[in-house]
Each structure stands twice: as structure tokens, then as C-alpha cells.
């Protein structure tokens, strides 16, 4: 019937576009990391990857990224789950809370970063202002000037921005749990904690895993929030891999090295997402 040919017409254009905007540039980046493209003297070389392995700057960026992603994702998942449970409860004015709950996620991450940067600013910032007014501290804290505090501020800011999405997914999952399960359990004499542990959590497991993988992926690639809030500073205390790559490419003009770092990050993210991808591929069959 020529069906197989029509498939080509439908699926083809999108794939062509994808190859054009994703495939070629990705290939170019890989080539560039091996010093084969856009360099004065092109020739296969592992120099960039060797540098990657020995560069303390990259180790620091890697460590920063690991700390940042794990803390933020933990924050997201726990707050998201908590918020979803709260919003799932039967209370008046639910829609109002829902609206307010999703607001942080609606902001572009750059904008969020700028607002939180101002909030954490040492003298005119809200956080120090509130802490001083409530007499919890007697001197303004240098949130963005101290390496550990800067990382903490970043986590608070990105935690704020990202958790509503997790909450939405988990809320949908919660609402998909059939009510009769709870009713049956109540008949059997289960209390609230039992319900949560033996019905709610297992039912949410799939959504939880999906949300977790998605969140890890998104946080690994995050750029705007970190760039606008700390720029990687102070020093390189909050320089995550994406920031380091940007700097290497646009501030230090080390194209090959920047490409190598980016390839390393991409491989890392593919590794994290492979189980999820395999699972979804199996489902399509």
C-alpha cells in the first residue's frame, strides 16, 4: 500500500531537522575535541582528554556538579513529594495553593537566578535583612562571597525553582492511585502510616523514578541559574561543568578543550539516562 513510504514522509522531516540541528553539531563537537576540526593544525590528538583527566580545574568542576546535582535533586524530590501529598489532601482553596505552588517553575532560570542573587546580596539583600531583623544573626552573612555559602544559596535558589515540576508529576501519580485501595486497607485496619508505606509509595515508584531521572538530567545541564547567580564564583567554588565549558570556549578560547569537557558531560548524562531510555524503548515494542 506504500504505507512504509508514507511513514518516511511523516517521520522523516522531523528526523532530518533533528540531524541537522543536533546530530551534526554534536558530531562537530566530538571532532573538535579530538582536534580534528576548526583548529589551525588539524590532526587526531588525545591532548584535550589527557588535559581533562589531569586538570584540577575540571576535577573541581566535576565535584561541584556532583554536589550540586545530588543536593538539588534530593531537595526537589523530597519537597516535591511533600508538596504533592499536601496538595492531594482534601482542603478548601486547593486551586489557590496549586497556582502558587507552580509559580517558581514558570520563571526562566536566568530570571530566577538574578532575583535570588539580589535576595542573597550582602547588604541590600532580603535574606540578610530578614535575618538581622529577626536577630538571628548580628552581622550580615556573605552568602555569595563564601564558597560553601554560595553553593548553599545556589541550592536553595534552584531548589525553589525546580521542585514544582516534580510536585506536579507526583501529584498526577497520586491522583491515579485508585481510591478503593485505601478503602480496602482502612477496612483491614491499616493506619495512615501503613497506607502511605504500602500503598502510596509503591504506586508512586514509577513516576518517582521518571521524575528522578528527568531532574538529574536537567540539573546536570543547567546553565542560566548558575551563570546569573554566581557566575561560577567565588573563584570556582560554584563552577559547574556547564559553566566551565562556557568559559573555556568563550572566555579563554580553548575550543578543543571545551569540546572535550562537553563530550564528557554528555557521556555522563547518557550514562545516567540509559536505564530510563532502555525502559521506555522496551515499552514501545
Amino acid at each position, binding site marked *: 500500500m506504500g504505507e512504509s513510504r*508514507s511513514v518516511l514522509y511523516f517521520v522523516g522531516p522531523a528526523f532530518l531537522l*533533528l540531524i541537522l540541528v543536533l546530530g551534526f553539531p554534536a558530531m562537530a*563537537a566530538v571532532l573538535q575535541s579530538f582536534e580534528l576540526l576548526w583548529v589551525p593544525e588539524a590532526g587526531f590528538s588525545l591532548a584535550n582528554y589527557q588535559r581533562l583527566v589531569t586538570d584540577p580545574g575540571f576535577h573541581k568542576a566535576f565535584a561541584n556538579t556532583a554536589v550540586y546535582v545530588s543536593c538539588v535533586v534530593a531537595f526537589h524530590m523530597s519537597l516535591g513529594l511533600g508538596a504533592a501529598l499536601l496538595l492531594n*489532601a482534601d482542603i478548601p482553596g486547593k486551586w489557590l495553593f496549586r497556582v502558587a505552588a507552580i509559580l517558581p517553575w514558570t520563571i526562566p532560570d536566568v530570571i530566577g537566578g538574578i532575583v535570588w542573587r539580589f535576595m542573597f546580596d550582602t547588604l541590600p539583600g532580603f535574606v540578610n535583612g530578614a535575618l538581622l531583623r529577626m536577630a538571628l544573626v548580628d552581622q550580615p552573612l556573605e552568602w555569595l562571597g563564601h564558597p560553601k555559602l554560595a553553593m548553599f544559596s545556589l541550592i536553595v535558589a534552584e531548589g525553589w525553582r525546580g521542585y514544582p515540576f516534580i510536585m506536579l508529576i507526583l501529584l498526577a501519580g497520586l491522583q491515579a492511585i485508585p481510591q478503593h485501595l485505601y478503602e480496602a486497607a482502612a477496612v483491614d485496619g491499616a493506619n495512615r502510616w501503613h497506607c502511605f508505606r504500602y500503598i502510596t509509595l509503591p504506586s508512586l515508584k514509577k513516576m518517582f523514578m521518571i521524575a528522578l531521572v528527568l531532574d538529574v538530567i536537567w540539573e546536570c545541564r543547567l546553565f*542560566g541559574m548558575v551563570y546569573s547567580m554566581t557566575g561560577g564564583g567565588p573563584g570556582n567554588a560554584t563552577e559547574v561543568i556547564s559553566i566551565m565549558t*562556557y568559559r573555556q570556549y568563550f572566555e579563554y578560547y580553548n575550543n578543543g578543550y571545551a569540546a572535550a569537557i562537553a563530550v564528557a*558531560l554528555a557521556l555522563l548524562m547518557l550514562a545516567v539516562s540509559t536505564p530510563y531510555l532502555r525502559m*521506555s524503548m522496551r515499552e*514501545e*515494542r
Partner: protein
Amino acid sequence: MVTNPRFRILTFIGLGALMVYNLLPFYWMTMSSFKTTLEVISFPVTFMPDAPTLDAYRSIWMQEGFPVYFWNSIVTSGSTAILSSVFGVFAAYGFSRFAFRGKALLMTVMLGSQMLPGILLVGPYFEIMSIIELYNTRSGLVLALTTITLPFSVWMLKGYIDTLPVEIDQAAMIDGASRLQTLLMVILPNILPGLVATMTFAFLLAWGDVLWALCLISEPAVQPMTLGVLRLVGQFRVEWAQIMAATVIASSIPAFFYVILQRYLVQGFAGSAVKD
């Protein structure tokens, strides 16, 4: 589940705390945007403006040229949304209705492409755009932004098309319609809400981008709003009141749309994942 009053009160308190956390930056953003330039950097901090003024907004809109950035954002995000939705709806239909060899693989590739970090691509994009002279153009930026929006659009639209039973297609084809006509005249009208939601989300994804704009746009005349706000910070005089006014404007559009469309977002993500 029995909801006893004590539990309800705890829930309210929990929600209240959450709301404070959520809304605090919005409150600060707005309050600061109404302060004067001296008051906004004053120490100790004032929590409400002493003499509220619209100076910051006036300055942003008139002097800094924000209407231009606003318009650029609308044009680039709109073009990106249209481009990815058009290509996406075709691909989504193909994935939804056809069975073919390699389909699972192709779908996984499409999904996996979302895992590639933007930072991998900006360098090559920068080189390529410079060579083909699309650097510093909105078209170049639109092409770049489709890397974010296309896989996502295909995924969401497929979810929506899946909800329509195959019988509809078959009925139309029995009546003599080609696949294309089926898509246009039968499927599309039925998933219109989903299509609108997908386009809007693609629009919002593109609106929120800054990495691509930062690397591909150098002139203020074509820069989108997110880049405009970013470039404000670090000006010789960090006028926080102005910057906050800009952030209020920049976040109002996405906030508005997301709030309206949150139902569809949940459906789109949860629906295609929760397979009953």
C-alpha cells in the same frame, strides 16, 4: 481516608510554609521594583518601599529599550513553537499510527536527544552560524532553540494522538482519505487543545532560554528578553530597582501561561508515562 481536624491543620501549616517559600522572591522582586535607586541599595533593608515609584519601569521600558527585547522574545519563541509543532505533529502521527522496523529505536533516539546538554552544541553552533552568516540573527536562534523544543513536542503530541482510537483513522481512510488528509482533517481537530498546549509549552521553553541567546546574539536589537535582563546585571551601575522591574516583566508572561495550562502539562507528562 479519614481526615481528622488535626491533620487538616497540619496540612494547612505545611502548605502555608510552602507558599511563603514560593512567593517570597516574587514579593521581593515586586517590592524592589517600586523603590528608588538609593532606597533599593540601602542598608538596613526596607521591606516595603518608602515612597513607591514607577521610575524603574519607566526607565526599563523607555530608556533600556525593553519593548524591543520583548518583541524579539515573542518572535523567536513563536517561530520556534511553530517550527517544532509542524515538524512534530507529523512525526508524532507517524510514531503513533505506524508500526515499522526500528520504530522503538528511532523513538528512543528522539527521546535520548533531549539528554544532550546544550553546552555541547553551542560551540559548534557558534562556528557554523558564523560561517553561514546566521550569527546574530533571530533565524539562527530559532534553529538552535528547536534542539530543545522538537523532541519534547514530538513526545507530547504523540501522547495526545495516542488517546484517539485508531478506528477514527480507519473510518476516514475507508471513506477515501489519504493519511495526510486523515491527519489534517480528523486527528488535528480532535487534539486541538493538546496541540495548543504543546505549542505553548514549546513557546515557553524557548522563552526561558538564555544559553543559546548568550552565545549566538551580540546586538541588542535582536536579543530576547532573558538576555536583555542578564545583560542589565553588571552594567556600570547595578540599578537593582530597574533589574527587578525587568524581571517582573520577564516572568509575568510565562507565569500567566503556565498557570493556565498546568493541567495539560500534567496530562502530557503523566499521561504518556502512566499507562493503564
